[in-house]
């Protein structure tokens, strides 16, 4: 009996988190908890039976998101030894969460401290795996530090995302620009390769 109740409680909690993900992806993190309750099909009070505050709900959601995306990044790095494969897999992974990720990077300054940590952890996982591949590029051999190459890649991707209204106002941005972003970065990273 007790297990069933516990399972139900877990299920409701999961349902609220999944609804919060969808609502925040669509409307950003300032969306009211009432909208999340409606999306989850639970009463407004039920949210606060599972999370003491909206901040705690956001923290739990980001922790879950960070773990998921971090594991995805880890896997793609294990399976993509070359830079092109890694870049494409990275964008494919972010594309699955494009809207949510975009709100996370643009609004993280206003989010609870956990958001900053989630983002930092994600960057650490990505930076570590990218660093292992980037250190072999011509650019790195020519003295550009691998962290600078990683930051250049993230800068490029985030610039396009943050200015989505200029580049792809009506459709998901990453699928549309993957070829161009990957080609551009690869070309830059490989400049000077012939002279070696």
């Amino acid at each position, binding site marked *: 009996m007790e297990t069933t109740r516990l399972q139900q409680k877990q299920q409701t909690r999961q349902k609220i988190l999944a609804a919060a993900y969808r609502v925040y992806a669509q409307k950003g993190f300032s969306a009211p908890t009432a909208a999340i309750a409606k999306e989850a099909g639970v009463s407004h009070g039920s949210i606060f039976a599972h999370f003491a505050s909206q901040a705690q709900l956001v923290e739990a959601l980001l922790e879950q998101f960070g773990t998921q995306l971090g*594991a995805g990044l*880890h896997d793609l790095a294990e399976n993509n030894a070359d830079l092109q494969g890694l870049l494409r897999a990275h964008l494919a992974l972010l594309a699955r969460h494009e809207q949510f990720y975009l709100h996370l990077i643009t609004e993280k300054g206003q989010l609870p*401290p956990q958001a*900053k*940590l989630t983002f*930092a*952890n994600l*960057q*650490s996982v990505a*930076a*570590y795996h990218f*660093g292992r591949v980037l250190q072999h590029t011509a650019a790195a051999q020519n003295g550009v*530090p*691998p*962290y*600078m190459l*990683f*930051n250049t890649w993230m800068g490029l991707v985030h610039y396009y995302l943050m200015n989505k209204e200029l580049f792809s106002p009506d459709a998901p941005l990453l699928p549309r620009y993957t070829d161009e972003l990957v080609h551009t970065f690869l070309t830059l990273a490989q400049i000077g390769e012939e002279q070696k």
Partner: protein
Amino acid sequence: MKTCIACGMPMQKPADFAGGDMTKDYCIYCARPDGTMQSFAEKRAGMIRFLQETQGMEKAAAAEIAEASMRKLPAWQAQFRKGAAADGDAE
């Protein structure tokens, strides 16, 4: 799947574990050359160095992130209860 108690890294294959020993709770990156687990100060310094090297972070910002990550990991709970985070600030 196990995750390292000292840094949170997922450990899947033997090579991820300290000394290749899958019964260990910490990873290859958290082990000293003799196989024992790094101390709080060693790990903290290592994480700061890692953040600086892989992301080019400023040192104080890297320290803040290193401590926030360590605060969540099972291996360092006692240190944070003692309020020892600042002790690692040597150097």
